[in-house]
């Protein structure tokens, strides 16, 4: 039964597909194309980091502190940019969280622009963005408990009203729970909307869509992906450093 042009065109493809089915404690689960593209992204990142690390060890051993090649120059640029961003966002606790934020940044950035490689971006699957946000959520609340005294914590949670009148407490707790949800949904919906848009253009226009969608790829994949990566990392840093009480 046809639901019109949009849903009857069968070459529109932006959904998650199960590729291999297997049984996990009696549940039917699938290896989806998200897993495949996430593994490819991780492989690229691993090869990149191994090569970059080799370059750095070699430079250290030979005591040549100027970058030796164009590739190492690029790596240095990336590390410097990440370092400045983390320092600007977190201040004193930047060295502790630099590894986490930089890993997050590289992974999300490569995931977002992997649409250019013909993959389905892994971040267009809610099962990828929610865990990323939940890691942030865990770090936020671990820091909050560790760096604040219980009395201060109670006072913060009742914050606009005095601590003996905890009417505002449930609202503060709901806004705490909303943090990972909004963090993950923002990334997910942005990448998903780009994926759907490109799939619609390629699926519905057919041969008309040759060449010029490259400009749309620049917007939907590169620009939007980079902005959302930056926003995700920036918000993670802001939340963590405010939980650590450093502002």
């Amino acid at each position: 039964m046809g639901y019109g042009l949009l849903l009857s065109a069968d070459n529109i493809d932006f959904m998650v597909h199960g590729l291999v089915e297997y049984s996990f404690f009696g549940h039917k689960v699938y290896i989806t194309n998200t897993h495949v593209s996430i593994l490819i992204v991780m492989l690229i990142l691993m090869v990149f980091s191994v090569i970059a690390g080799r370059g750095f060890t070699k430079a250290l051993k030979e005591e040549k502190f100027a970058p030796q090649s164009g590739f190492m120059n690029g790596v240095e640029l990336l590390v410097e940019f990440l370092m400045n961003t983390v320092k600007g966002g977190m201040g004193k606790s930047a060295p502790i969280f630099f590894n986490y934020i930089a890993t997050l940044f590289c992974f999300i950035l490569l995931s977002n622009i992997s649409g250019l490689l013909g993959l389905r971006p892994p971040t267009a699957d809610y099962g990828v963005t929610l865990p990323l946000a939940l890691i942030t959520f865990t770090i936020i609340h671990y820091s909050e408990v560790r760096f604040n005294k219980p009395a201060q914590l109670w006072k913060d949670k009742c914050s606009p009203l005095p601590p003996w009148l905890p009417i505002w407490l449930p609202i503060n707790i709901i806004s705490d729970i909303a943090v990972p949800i909004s963090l993950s949904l923002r990334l997910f919906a942005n990448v998903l909307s780009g994926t759907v848009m490109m799939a619609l253009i390629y699926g519905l226009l057919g041969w008309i869509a040759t060449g010029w969608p490259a400009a749309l790829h620049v917007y939907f994949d590169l620009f939007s992906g980079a902005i959302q990566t930056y926003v995700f990392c920036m918000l993670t840093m802001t939340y963590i450093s405010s939980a650590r009480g450093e502002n």
Partner: protein
Amino acid sequence: MEFNENFIFGCSAIGAGLAVIAGIGPGVGQGIAAGHGAAAVGRNPGAKGDIMSTMLLGQAVAETTGLYGLLVAMLLMFVKPFV
């Protein structure tokens, strides 16, 4: 009273269209942010980099509510929870 599948899907499509109206708010908000960003660069051209990054961050956060509308529309159209 019984409704058939097509009727429910048609109603879902109308609902998806209504949900995307949520895009108006972020559009206005991002426009305001961009306007103030341009004014700030005009007053203080030296701080262009900082202003740009703050503006983009704020705009991306403001975009969230519009994306929620988009997400609801997509769920109604492609996941079809009511059909």
